């Protein structure tokens, strides 16, 4: 879907989150000179077209007790990436799953999945479950637990350059 200039303006004002007021869509519309009804229509369209994956509460896992945040990366052969990516995504504990490019020689991994857990050991067990149940015991992998969070917020989509 090609977003129009009006869509982009709307994205810019809703991406940081809706205001906590009775008529939030009217308030964000006022910022860009758009009627409440048009704001609603455009958001509904972006949801139906999949540009918006979901619309609602965005939680911060760490503050809710999920302190073991692991990015698990796998060197899956190219021809099996789609199959394994879909398998990984069927597990409840996998919160994101992406294919990304190899960057040899430093970075051989092609499939990334995120696991947010309360305990480190439990997360490592879940990684073992993925490996065993998907037949990946011999596939090279790494588990990168997060340390300090230097920044965490929603993306900004401002069209103007800020630097």
């Amino acid at each position, binding site marked *: *879907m090609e977003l129009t200039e009006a869509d982009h303006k709307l*994205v810019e004002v*809703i*991406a*940081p*989150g*809706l205001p*906590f*007021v*009775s*008529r*939030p869509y*009217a308030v964000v519309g006022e910022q860009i000179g758009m009627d409440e009804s048009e704001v*609603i229509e455009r*958001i509904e369209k972006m*949801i139906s077209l999949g*540009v*918006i*994956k*979901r*619309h*609602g*509460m*965005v*939680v*911060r*896992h760490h503050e*809710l007790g999920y302190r073991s945040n692991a*990015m698990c990366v796998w060197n899956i052969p190219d021809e099996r990436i*789609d199959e394994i*990516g*879909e398998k*990984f*995504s069927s597990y409840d504990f*996998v*919160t994101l*799953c*992406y*294919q*990304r*490019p190899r*960057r040899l020689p430093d*970075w051989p991994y092609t499939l*990334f999945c995120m696991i947010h857990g*309360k305990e480190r050991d439990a997360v490592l067990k879940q990684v073992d479950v993925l490996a065993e149940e998907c037949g990946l015991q011999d596939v090279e992998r790494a588990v*990168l*637990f997060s*340390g*300090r*969070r*230097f*920044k*965490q917020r*929603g*993306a*900004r*989509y401002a*069209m103007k350059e*800020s*630097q």
Partner: protein
Amino acid sequence: MDELKRNLLDAYQRGFPVSPTPYKDVAEKLGVSEEQVLDAVKELKASGALSRVGPVFKPKSVGDSTLAAMAVPTERLEEVAEMVNGFSEVNHNYEREHCFNLWFVVTAPDKARVEAVLNEISDAAGLEVLNLPMVADYHLDLGFALQWN
């Protein structure tokens, strides 16, 4: 955490109403007042448990983005992380346990700006940046099933 807050986080990570009075609609479903819902989301936000209420965009559907990493000498990590944070295009920036120990997401209106930001970061740090843009997304994001025990 009280029951209303738990219910909000359980039921509305997706499907938040796109109607003139969404908080009132949520309140009616949960059998509370609009004011109680507004107070609860404000408190969740203040506590840090709630990042925001709003859309999660499909990667690359609006503008362009990438995941990037650098192998930063430990003694320089804070200084480099602060420099990276200085870019408004960076929305996530984490330390991770690996020789590639600094991981950040760059989002900008187009690919050219994403690459320009990576080059500026690389030059400022004097370090190589690993650029790992998404190739495919396998996860249908339905929100996160929280365990409250």
